[in-house]
């Protein structure tokens, strides 16, 4: 078991009343799965991914990651988990504007204290694999959206994560670019990487081998398969 959510509740207080962002979510994820989280805008997809990615807290319930309770994790352990197990891909790419393509991809390796020569080799591999060798010295602002997202994925993959969390990775791309990204995810999944993606596109969701429907922060059981 890679991770397990048990009756997770997340809420915010508004006017003294609780507004639930996540409402009693339970979810088991095995290694090697490709899960799509679907739902309309505002249904809580990002919130759920953030909780899974430990970027956000929750108020109630239990979250086990590799059989360790996330609740009790210290900040230090959390950043260790990011480094070792999790790669993020965002709808808005979230590249560091001041760094070049090469440097963006290299950054996670820096935090893993990998030697310079090894870093070079790994980054070169990635650039090669995503066909962006020619763009390595450009800054994010000089790239198209699709290219930026490729860099984002390359960066997420470079540290060889077990789990990729992708929040509407194709949301800002045209359908052709979107498809390419999805094919890429499928490939990665076949190599053994666990993927959880949020999307509101049926066709993208279909790449996954399991689909979770969210509405107002709750899982919709009738639609699951």
């Amino acid at each position, binding site marked *: 078991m890679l991770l397990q959510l048990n009756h997770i509740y997340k809420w915010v207080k508004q006017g003294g009343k609780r507004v639930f962002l996540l409402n009693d979510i339970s979810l088991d994820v095995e290694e090697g799965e490709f899960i799509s989280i679907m739902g309309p805008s505002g249904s809580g997809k990002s919130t759920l991914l953030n909780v899974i990615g430990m*970027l956000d807290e929750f108020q109630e319930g239990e979250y086990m990651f590799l059989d360790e309770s996330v609740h009790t994790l210290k900040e*230090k352990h959390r*950043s260790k988990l*990011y480094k070792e197990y*999790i790669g*993020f891909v965002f709808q808005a790419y*979230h590249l560091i504007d001041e*760094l070049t393509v090469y440097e963006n991809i290299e*950054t996670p390796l820096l*935090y893993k204290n990998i030697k310079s020569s090894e870093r070079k080799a790994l980054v070169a591999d990635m650039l090669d694999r995503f066909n962006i060798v020619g763009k390595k010295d450009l800054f994010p602002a000089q790239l198209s959206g699709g290219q930026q997202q490729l860099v984002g994925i390359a960066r997420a993959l470079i540290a060889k994560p077990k789990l990729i969390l992708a929040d509407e990775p194709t949301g800002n791309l045209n359908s052709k670019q979107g498809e390419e990204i999805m094919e890429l995810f499928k490939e990665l999944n076949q190599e053994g990487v666990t993927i959880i993606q949020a999307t509101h596109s049926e066709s993208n969701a279909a790449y996954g081998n399991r689909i979770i429907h969210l509405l107002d922060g709750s899982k919709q059981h009738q639609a699951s398969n």
Partner: protein
Amino acid sequence: MIRNYIKIAWRNIWNNKLFSAINIISLAIGLSAAFVIGLMVYYEFTFDTFHQNGDRMYRVVSDFETPQGDMKNGGVTPPMRLAVREELTGIEQSAYFFNWWISESKAASSEQIFKDPEKIILTQASYFGLFQYKWIAGSKETALQKPNQVVLTRKRALEYFPNLPLTAVMGQTIEYNADIQAVVSGIVEDFDKRSDFFFDEFVSLETAKQTESKDQILSDSWGMTNNASQLYIKISEHSTAAQIKSQLLALSEQHVDADMIKYNNKRTFNLQPLADLHFDQEYGVYDYSRPEANKNILISLIFIAIFLLLLGSINFINLNTAQATQRAKEIGIRKTLGSSKIQLIVQFLGETFLLTLLAALSSVILSILALKVFDDFIPNGVDATLMVSPWFAGLVLGLITILTFLSGFYPGLVLSRFKPSRALKGELIRSENKGSLRKVLTVSQFVIAQVFVTATLLVSKQIYFMMHSDLGFRTDAVAYLQTPWEDQKVDKRLVLEQEITNLPGVSRISLGGMPPASHNMATRMGIYKTENQEVIQELQVLNGDGDYLDVYNIDILAGRKPLNDTIEEYIINETGMQAFGFHNPEDIVGKYIELNSNKRLIVGVMKDFKQRSLKTGIVPLVLTGDTGRERRTNFRTVHLVLGDKASGWSGTLAQIEQVYKKIYPGEDFKMTFLDQTIANFYEQEQRIASLLNWATGLSVLISCLGLLGLVIHTTERRNKEIGIRKVLGASLVQLNLLLCRDFLKLVLLAYLISVPLAWWGLHNWLQDYTYKTEMSWWIFALSGIGMVVLALAIMSFKTLRTALRNPVESLRTE
């Protein structure tokens, strides 16, 4: 990793050129001040630190307690030189010397006469035992054994004998005051380290027997203390200063004489550590031409540097936390990529370090310039060469480190605390940091700047007040001409006076001693005896002929002037009259006051005037004629009132010079305007004022730069709002007010805080002055209005430009 940080830091600095410039300039101002002041402090604190066992060396000094007040004398009574060797225990070495002031000296083999040569002492081999010199020729044991021997420093040897090799200087003869000769018996290197022992010429003490002042130098009498008689000791390793002091105390009790009992004076011998010598204000050091090293001024300077550094740091913190939103995304991403909090803080410290380093590098250059610009203010020996020292490198590195932590730690902490999920959404900060710290810091900044502004205004006002208030005698169009002091006779001076009187441009003239206000005043004890009591009072003595009071427009309240210029009759001032217990001027006229054990007649009372400066009050004073004319005249100065300025003073001055040169050929012409003399009384205040001007200017500059940065930042974020408001019909003034309002509030709050602080500080400062200017309300008002107007102007520079922008543009950018 480091490379990555530096890269991103550099790109950030480059992409935010304006903010980086503000940060660097603010830090560089503080750093430059700190560097220059650091050099001054280093310079002043490293005098005489090189002597062997200097921590065991002391000067023996004399403290006097008298009914008129306490006096400190850096000298000792001459027999003390023997007593420290023969009677006291625990003293390893001692050196006695006499600071010898002579009117001329020359090498016997040369025609060149050195007038009023300085840096000559009469001393013994023990001087060179205590103070280690490098000997070029001769030896410390033998060089000063016999009378009529002299040791020269290399510098002085070259002055006397520019054409001789040093080896040939040995055995040459030097003549002092034309009648005493000494043979060069040794040559030493000048001290190459900083020292207050700046003497160049060491004449054997035995030679003193041939001088006029032999009684003073080698006397056996314990009664007299001349501050030229200097005594240094090195206490032995096993002894302590306290032990020596108690022996000295016993010695002073042993040598109480009848006069001391009679006048109720008390003398105690004391020790002054060598380390205190340089900052000495009480006992006197030797180089009068050097501006006093004033510990208090140095400390104020250090505070100014600290304030400026703090102000720069505040700008840094404010601008960086304000810009945090822009950095939030990067932080969020880095956290998801596995960066720990510590790593983020290190990254931001690194950026701060880079900026500080840039600031420090420019400051090194700036401070070299500053050393030139502030030449007047900075001691002569302080120059850029002092920068080439491990000490300075330490200062630079230390300040860079401190500033990096001071400025970078808090912003780093704030930034690293962002929750990544929210940082990525760009929604944070407003809730995490309402900018209240920023407000506190901005207010503190302006409090400091405002206090400086107010202080500058008040100090200037006090100086103006002192220079322009009525001293009680004529100060404009009055000048005085000093005559050569070697000439002891009055005759030539009478001729001089007569000839100047005939010049058409001079309206009044008088022959006398010093002008009514001057630094050097002779004093004497006056005793007034009645049947049942005795009043002893210290009196200042002025000398002047019958026209003196007319030249200076000083009124006589009762009685008359002395009958002639040489009769021992005295006019006393009102304060003196009151000191002797009289209330009516008429009553003291005709009474006798005892001066030097002789009864002297008071013939008149003159109106009070301020003798010294407005710092001190009026003290008892008497005016008399040239009472000691047979021995040597006191009438050494010609006082004159010049005619109408319009008719041209320069012509008159030239004529006076001509007359003077005819009577005293080859002598310097020293003519001084009285108002200049009075302005010189306030030299220290002028220095404080110019210091304050700079401190104020710089602190206001830094604070305003910071304000500008914040305004630019907030205005930029409100672009869209401004566009909408403009479309809705807001006027330029309304928009400007809207944008500046929040900041103006801070400036006003700072002003309110600054008022009591400034009031308290300035009130204390004014306590030192007997005559104080008023702490008028308008000073506080003016400084506040000035600051608000300035702040508004600086902010409007940005806000108006934003408000003037075409609203369509700013709305389209969304």
